[in-house]
């Protein structure tokens, strides 16, 4: 799978996957940036602007009214709900997270796609007295359609390219059903038996909190199809939308990063670095315009990640011997002195990068001491930790030799080297760094 696809797959899994089971969990941010999680008992209102719900805090219900931009994630579908459609949504999410996307033919076992598709078009009312249990509500359709798009996109990434087109068609459908002040229902071509369609009434839900995310998905799908211009335009459209103060900052950052990834794909490392540096710089500027601290934090973090990504790409260039190690070293040091002062992830990333560059330059002790906080901190991302474990193993040997030259005894450090690499292989066996540590 391409790296691009991997990232989106991870993001999708995070969106759809996680815990499938009882209760609908809401992750939201306070204005000051604190992120909290709470189970949702009932949603009062949910549109692109506002989100209102009754949540449970310490088991006790509390009303929550926040702008929708501060909803970090909200997974709908409850396996223990009374309502069948809510249960099925949860089933669909579970199937998605276990990779059962397509329907199994023999014996016929519905996959995530079929499950979501059915929910997307259901208008069942239920018998009198049984509405709570059997009635399909517009939000069921809304979320199911969103998840359906996700699923088809994923299926496309896994090889079934026809699913991209289906996903795009679903995007159009979502747009139509999300139109502002729509009628309660509209006519639509809904799937029928044996791959045919038929006209049927479908719910409209109007203003949807999910629409911007659907639009981002659209851009990703176009990118996955290789439709460069369309994809870039789509990304730009999302970015513009996301710049509005009421838009979620995560939408802005995801769009920026996705666009940068798309633009950088296939380019030489130095150019890739430029793309990410530009994205980072732009995001840094946009962070200042965020209406709240939460937004500032999210966008700044994304900006820093982009900058760090750029530096990593310079390191890869040095690995390919296209530049000297001084180039990425200087960039990492710049980041450490700048953004790294406030952003721990950048600090660690920069430190790991500095350590790697110093090792390549033959400097043992300084490299070792730069890498040590990264490997023992437990906070770095897996890839960065794997890299750091590889380099600290090398640095330990160099350090040991340096100690000998200083008149001391470096045996202890040299003996450490193998143990760091042993950690690397145990914890990240499939990483390229584990492969190098032989």
């Amino acid at each position: 799978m391409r790296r691009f696809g991997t990232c989106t797959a991870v993001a999708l899994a995070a969106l759809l996957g996680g815990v499938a089971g009882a209760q609908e969990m809401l992750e939201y941010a306070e204005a000051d940036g604190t992120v909290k999680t709470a189970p949702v008992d009932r949603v009062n209102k949910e549109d692109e602007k506002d989100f209102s719900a009754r949540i449970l805090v310490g088991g006790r219900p509390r009303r929550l009214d926040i702008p929708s931009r501060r909803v970090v994630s909200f997974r709908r579908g409850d396996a223990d709900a009374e309502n069948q459609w809510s249960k099925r949504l949860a089933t669909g999410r579970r199937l998605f997270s276990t990779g059962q996307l397509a329907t199994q033919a023999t014996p016929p076992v519905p996959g995530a796609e079929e499950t979501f598709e059915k929910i997307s078009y259901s208008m069942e009312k239920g018998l009198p007295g049984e509405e709570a249990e059997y009635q399909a509500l517009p939000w069921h359709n809304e979320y199911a359609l969103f998840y359906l798009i996700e699923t088809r996109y994923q299926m496309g990434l896994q090889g079934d390219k026809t699913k991209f087109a289906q996903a795009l068609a679903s995007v159009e459908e979502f747009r139509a059903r999300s139109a502002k002040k729509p009628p309660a229902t509209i006519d639509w071509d809904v799937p029928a038996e044996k791959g045919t369609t038929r006209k049927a009434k479908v719910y409209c839900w109007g203003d949807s909190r999910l629409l911007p995310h659907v639009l981002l998905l659209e851009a990703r799908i176009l990118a996955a199809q290789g439709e460069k211009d369309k994809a870039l335009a789509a990304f730009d459209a999302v970015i513009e939308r996301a710049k509005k103060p009421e838009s979620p900052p995560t939408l802005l950052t995801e769009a920026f990063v996705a666009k940068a990834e798309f633009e950088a794909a296939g380019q030489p490392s130095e150019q890739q670095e430029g793309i990410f540096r530009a994205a980072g710089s732009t995001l840094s500027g946009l962070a200042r315009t965020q209406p709240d601290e939460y937004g500032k934090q999210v966008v700044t973090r994304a900006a820093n990640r982009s900058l760090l990504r750029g530096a990593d790409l310079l390191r890869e260039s040095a690995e390919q011997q296209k530049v000297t190690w001084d180039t990425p070293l200087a960039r990492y040091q710049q980041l450490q002195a700048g953004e790294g002062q406030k952003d721990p992830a950048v600090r660690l990333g920069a430190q790991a990068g500095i350590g790697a560059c110093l090792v390549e330059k033959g400097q043992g002790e300084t490299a070792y001491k730069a890498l040590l906080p990264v490997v023992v901190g437990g906070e770095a991302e897996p890839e960065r930790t794997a890299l750091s474990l590889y380099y600290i193993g090398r640095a330990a040997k160099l350090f040991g030799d340096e100690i000998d030259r200083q008149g001391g005894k470096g045996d202890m450090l040299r003996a450490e080297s193998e143990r760091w690499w042993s950690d690397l292989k145990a914890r990240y066996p499939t990483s390229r760094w584990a492969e190098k540590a032989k």
Partner: protein
Amino acid sequence: MTLRRIAVFLLLAQIARADTTEDLEFATRLAGRGLEEMAFEILDKLEKSSDPNAARAGRYGKAALQRGQATAKRTRYLRDLEEGIPPRVTREEVLAAYADAKPKIEDFVANRPDNIDARFLLAALLQEYAEFLTGKDYPESMAAQREQLVTDNSAEADKLFQAAIGHYDEVVKRMSTALQGKDPDLTDPSYQQLTQAQYQAANAALRLALLHPKGPKFNFNSEAAIEKLDAFLGEHFEELHGAFAMRDLGVINFERGVRLGQRDDMETAANYFKELFTRVPEDPTVKDTSDVIGQAFYWYARACNALARGEGALGKPQPAWFDSTFTVAAQLREKLKIDSKNPWALKALLQVADAYAAQNRLKDAVAVAGEVLASARTTGQRQIGRDATDLLTPLVGRVADAGVLDASLLFEMGEALSAQGRTANAIAFYEKAVASATTDEDRLKVGYPGLVRIAREYRKDRRNFAAAEVAGRVVADYVKDADRNELSDFGGTAADACNLARLAWKEIADATKRPQDDTEYKRVRDLFVKEFPGHPENSDQAFAAAREMLAKGQYDEAAGKLADIPTSSRNYWQAQRMVPGCYRQLAIDEKDPAKSKAWHEKTLAAAQNLVALAAKGAADDPQVASSRQTGDLFGALSLASLGRWPEALAAIDAYLSRYGDPLIQRGAEFVVKIDAHLALKQLPEAEAALAAMLKRAPPGPPTRYASYGVFKALFEAYQKLEAGPERVSMAGRAAAILEGWLETQKDVGWDLRYRLGQVLFDAQRWGDAAEAFEAAAGLAPDDRRQQLTLSAAEAKYQQSQTATDVSAQDKVVMLAKVRDLFTDVLIPPDPKDPEKKEQLKVLHALANPAGYPTRETFDRVKKMPRAIYVAAQIYAKSSPAGIDGRYLAIRLITLLHEFTIPSPQPGKAHLDEFIPIWWDGAELKLRTYLAIAQSGTGAKEKEQAGLGLGYARKLSYENPKMDGPQRVAAVAALEAQLKTLAPK
């Protein structure tokens, strides 16, 4: 008695009934008592008998024991495999034990086909042998090896199983015949044995079936097993064995499902297991059915998961079956009330967790697997702990929802992995735990301790820079806190972290030998001392300093330092216990009585303070209890040293009744009690206390001291008593104590042995006294040797006189020896001593009847030592019936009584005890005169009669009162007889 031993006992008893020989019965009894080696010897002997039946019985008996041993070895081997430790016995040893026993038992059964027990034993052995050959009950982690064992040994195992089934069937046939017509009675051992045999036959059929992979043999044998099990179940549905059969039916159907893809069979299996755990029967012969229930749940979950996944030949997964697995956890808890020790219940829960994980219900999977992990860790079930950890490890990586990642569970997993030696994974989980600990509470409970664990792991792995780095973070956070408190939980964690960092830097500095590393070590060390003075490592230094002071004799300073050790120190209580001892030592060393007394007072105060401190401590803390005891003891010691005897006695009595063994002062506790009793003139109580002390305290200075003290008191006491039984008894007790005391002494001198001799003599233990005197004589200087030897001789003389089991003739012989001893001592063959020469002359003169000594001679005789008088007695009694020796004695005695007046004059005190002897002598003289007068009718005889008559009258007139009316009568009678014979 173990079940195995009972079985051997019964079997050997069976043989004994059939072939009764003394040896066999004896071997039976020995085996029943667990003395198998001895039983083997007996059976070995029996085997070598010329009687073929006896020889066979011996062989069989040995084989029965060997089979028991094989089973024990197998159990040990499998347990070690399960624990993951090198097995204490080898697989070959186990197989050899089975292989050795098998032919012997087969031979016996062939010759004794009617012996049901033997046949049953054989069948069981064959089945066990086959099962072990093919790796049954090997742990799951060795599944690959087990498969290989099956492949390598299936042919042989097949034969063994077939043979086992055949023998079981034969047992069933014979027993059924025997029990025909009787109602089944679960409590009847015969019925139990029949049921057991029937079940085992079916179970062996199952094992046989499982031996073979998919194919005709498996098909055939599995169907045969099902048939047997069905038949058994039909008859024994309500019994526990029925439950076993149901379980086995489930297992065989399970295997048919997996191997042959028979989905129906798998579903049948699931149904059997479900049926099993809903209705495990109440079997009156079995108390605990939780194992069966646990197995039922486990297999049910297994079957459901297998169907859900489409395991083996089942092919297509049917995820809906996972829903059935999910129900297991709740039902299991309901049925077993979650018995966390039941390994099957835990395994069942792991199946449930696996099902949850397969369905991406990660929160539930993590919760259940975490529960299993916690239970397995607390109950020491290592394999299950490893399985739970293995299941959890990848799950954690998949979980995106922070709410599922309970920081405590992650920490627990880190602990489990650390205990399993999986350092890298342990660190990873501790890191996750730290990352998940986002609340203040979690940071304190899990976050910081997690960092300390990580540091520890690195240090264990000798990555000291890493250890110092991680530990340093905890310390940095602690030091930043303006309100930091060493005694808080966080303070404790930070202290441990700082100590770890210190140790890590020490190792770095020692390893690299770089000045900058040494500087960093010192910085961390100083920080540790400054921030965490109460840490055990730090207070260890204060404690060490106090001990140095003690070693230098600076007791007062040491006491102060010890008292200041903070309560948080691990040495706190030990330090407090040492304080009274410091003051007591000062008291003992102090020469000035007044100052010494002051130190004793201080000791008492310190002891009372220690008791008060202990009263505030935790009642269940052994350190607190020990401190209380020390305080009580030093209190009693101090009171004794201060001479406050009644208080000391009360205190020590309370102490001795409160505290059992061992005595912490090796008996000094009793010394206090004994000294108090002696001081209060309570001699019997002191004796009783000494007796108690000698039972409880080990030999040592306290027992020696106490023994001598009581002895001395007894000795002085009985000296003041009149002669009589009480004096003798007291002397006896004193002697016993002194003997005991002397046994503890090295190099006992002659004087102590002499003292012992004296006491023994006073106690009328003549033989022991003689021994003691002789021992003393052997060690004494020359001038005392004679006296000691004579004392020994006197004791022996007394012994000879009081001996009741010696004939009169032997007594004479004993006395002769003693007499010779005296003679040798008193009158050596060629005396150089002038006095001794003189004595010899006198004796010779006396021995000569023609001679009559002069007054001067008699004066010398009068001055002779007491031993001479004793010698005279001895001579009198030890000489043979002839006249010579006796005459000498008579002469000696009569001389003495003629020329001495028995009165208590100074210098003649030693004659007092001879008053009766003197009168004996006088009476003897008269009798001699009479004897000579009666021996004939000549002039000489008449002359002796006249002399005798004159002597008798002289006695009446000139001598003091006779020593009793009997003597008066005797002398009067003799006088009358002499008068008739004397010349008119």
